[in-house]
């Protein structure tokens, strides 16, 4: 049998062991959702480059490993987290280690009445009904094999439920740490964010590594933006260069809601982010901004879909990237304006600079418009650092290397500066500068 089937069988076999480890949970209704997901997983195949959606991203490097669910979590102390702390950032911090919530490492935080902010595993014990109502509703197992894999092996993740009218002032900083040592682990963080009517919440979902181990992160995040809610979602992936990362984020936007997604990837050997946003009622707005910085042999892939299913909504999308070495990136941005979705405004831009002769970008903006009274635009540019700008800076006494760094920083910061949380913005600017100075 070929590698694809072997890998599939590997996970199917692991599911039985996983089920057995669940003990009492096996009989719960929630487990039926896992079982349905593993069936869906069994019915699908791992994609190859023959699949249109994966044409430019070969996942063979992931499939050749037999990843296992983490059997243990390393004993971490708060000091171990120091390098991931954000100075001056007033946030409630929720820490997950190898996919499991760590109460000890998380900060103590107040949860407003009626709200839920915490571990999905905990919620599963205390209030499974609420969880079942939202789990796998947006990111359905049949929508992709990695989503199915995630659902089947769901153990933990962040569960956020904000009731109508509540404003969560402090941002929630969700730190996902993987430290696997010699074990080649797969972690499947499963995140659910429900923002009630007229509520507000800001979330930073970050993925980092504590060591250089080979492991696979397969997060799925489902976001429901209720009527007139405001949701900001920052996803920061700066894992080690040996990590693999395939993520799915799906959001549904209610009437008058405002959803902003900032998707920043600088780490991992191979990273694929799929982001899907669907407008389900009028008057909503979304911003999808992204940044990818790659070097060496990294491959960073961003696939976004914005579905204007209803009239009178607006989407703005800006993805920028800088590629060095032999790195590669993929941008595929689909915008669908459905029949009858009049007065849609949809603007999309992708800009990449190639810093070396061997770096490569595959960019594909896809606009599918079935309505006639809309304003839509898209554009993709690929270029190099501007020689005239470099010379100008150097003619002022700034060294060649520094001048390049200044220009790449300015280019990339275009995305970071759109982030509204000031302390996060400043932190990311620093992170960006540090990364470019390397």
């Amino acid at each position, binding site marked *: 049998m070929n590698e694809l089937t072997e890998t599939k069988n590997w996970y199917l076999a692991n599911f039985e062991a996983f089920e057995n480890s669940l003990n009492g949970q096996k009989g719960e209704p929630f487990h039926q959702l896992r079982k349905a997901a593993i069936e869906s997983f069994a019915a699908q195949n791992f994609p190859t480059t023959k699949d249109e959606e994966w044409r430019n991203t070969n996942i063979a490097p992931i499939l050749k490993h037999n990843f296992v669910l983490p059997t243990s979590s390393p004993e971490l102390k708060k000091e171990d987290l120091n390098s991931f702390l954000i100075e001056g950032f007033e946030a409630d911090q929720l820490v997950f280690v190898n996919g499991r919530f760590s109460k000890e490492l998380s900060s103590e935080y107040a949860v407003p009445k009626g709200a839920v902010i915490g571990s999905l595993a905990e919620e599963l014990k205390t209030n499974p009904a609420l969880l079942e109502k939202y789990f796998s509703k947006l990111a359905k197992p049949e929508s992709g094999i990695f989503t199915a894999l995630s659902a089947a092996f769901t153990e933990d993740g962040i569960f956020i439920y904000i009731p109508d009218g509540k404003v969560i002032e402090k941002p929630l900083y969700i730190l996902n740490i993987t430290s696997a040592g010699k074990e080649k682990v797969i972690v499947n963080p499963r995140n659910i964010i429900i923002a009630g009517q007229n509520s507000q919440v800001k979330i930073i979902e970050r993925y980092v590594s504590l060591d250089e181990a080979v492991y696979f992160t397969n997060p799925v995040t489902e976001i429901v933006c209720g009527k007139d809610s405001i949701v900001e979602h920052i996803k920061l992936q700066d894992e080690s260069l040996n990590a693999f990362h395939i993520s799915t984020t799906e959001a549904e936007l209610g009437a008058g809601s405002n959803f902003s997604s900032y998707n920043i990837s600088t780490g991992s050997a191979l990273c694929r982010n799929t982001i899907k946003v669907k407008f389900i009622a009028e008057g909503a707005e979304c911003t999808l901004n992204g940044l990818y910085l790659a070097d060496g042999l990294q491959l960073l892939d961003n696939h976004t879909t914005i579905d204007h299913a209803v009239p009178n909504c607006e989407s703005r999308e800006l993805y920028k990237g800088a590629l060095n070495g032999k790195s590669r990136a993929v941008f595929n941005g689909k915008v669908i304006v459905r029949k009858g979705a009049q007065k849609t405004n949809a603007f999309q831009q992708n800009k990449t600079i190639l810093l070396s002769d061997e770096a490569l970008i595959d960019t594909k903006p896809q606009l599918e418009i079935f309505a006639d009274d809309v304003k839509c635009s898209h554009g993709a540019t690929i270029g190099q650092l501007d020689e005239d700008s470099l010379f*100008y800076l*150097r*003619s002022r*006494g700034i060294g060649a290397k520094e001048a390049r760094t*200044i220009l790449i*920083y300015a280019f990339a910061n*275009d995305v970071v500066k759109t982030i509204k949380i000031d302390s996060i913005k400043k932190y990311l600017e620093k992170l960006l500068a540090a990364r470019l100075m390397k």
Partner: protein
Amino acid sequence: MIEIKNLCVKIEGKEILKGINLTVNKGEVHAIMGPNGSGKSTLAQVLAGRSEYEITKGEVIYEGINLLELSPEDRARAGIFLAFQYPIEIPGVSNVNLLKTAVNEIRKYRGEEEYDAIEFLTMIKKKMGVVEMNDSLLNRSVNEGFSGGEKKRNEIFQMAALDPKLAILDETDSGLDIDALRVVAGGVNKLKTPDNAVILVTHYQRLLDYIVPDFVHVLYKGRIVKSGTKELALELEERGYDWVKDECPVGA
């Protein structure tokens, strides 16, 4: 201060400068005039270190060192400043950050201590007065969305901040209305000392009403065909360039 000897320069196989000889001493202002395409801007760019040009012959000695061997940044650090004919817009890089980085790199090169934030701002505020720069331009991206006049003013402001020994102004007068010209020229005059020097590259005599040159050279087809004092500029204004061309040696 600078001695240009038999400088010959090609770009894309085409010879632009065909043996330039020019000596500028400290305290002097030299104007280089000439019709379009004579090689004036090429000379300015070559002195600043633009790498697209191929130097086929000649040398440039600046303060006793071979200038042509230095990178653009080292030339700037050694005290050469080029005010661009078309200042570059750099989105996302603020004017003040560019200057802070530049000033400190230059100070480091000269073995001086880097400015801290307060020292730097004090210095900058003083220099802004030289060209009546508006505060708001300081935090804006370099030249982005600046008017033509603001861009040229910004060049002279940068010059004031970097305090060069040899300033080369490439058509700084082009595109300026009379008020802006007066401010920009006034700035250059204020920065003039007995220890520095200026090379003005210009097409028109107009600028020379405000910045009075000690010497005027006419560049034509890649050679300096005539040199004189400020009266030469007036004569060019009156008679145009044709008579100089006529005096040009055969074969030029």
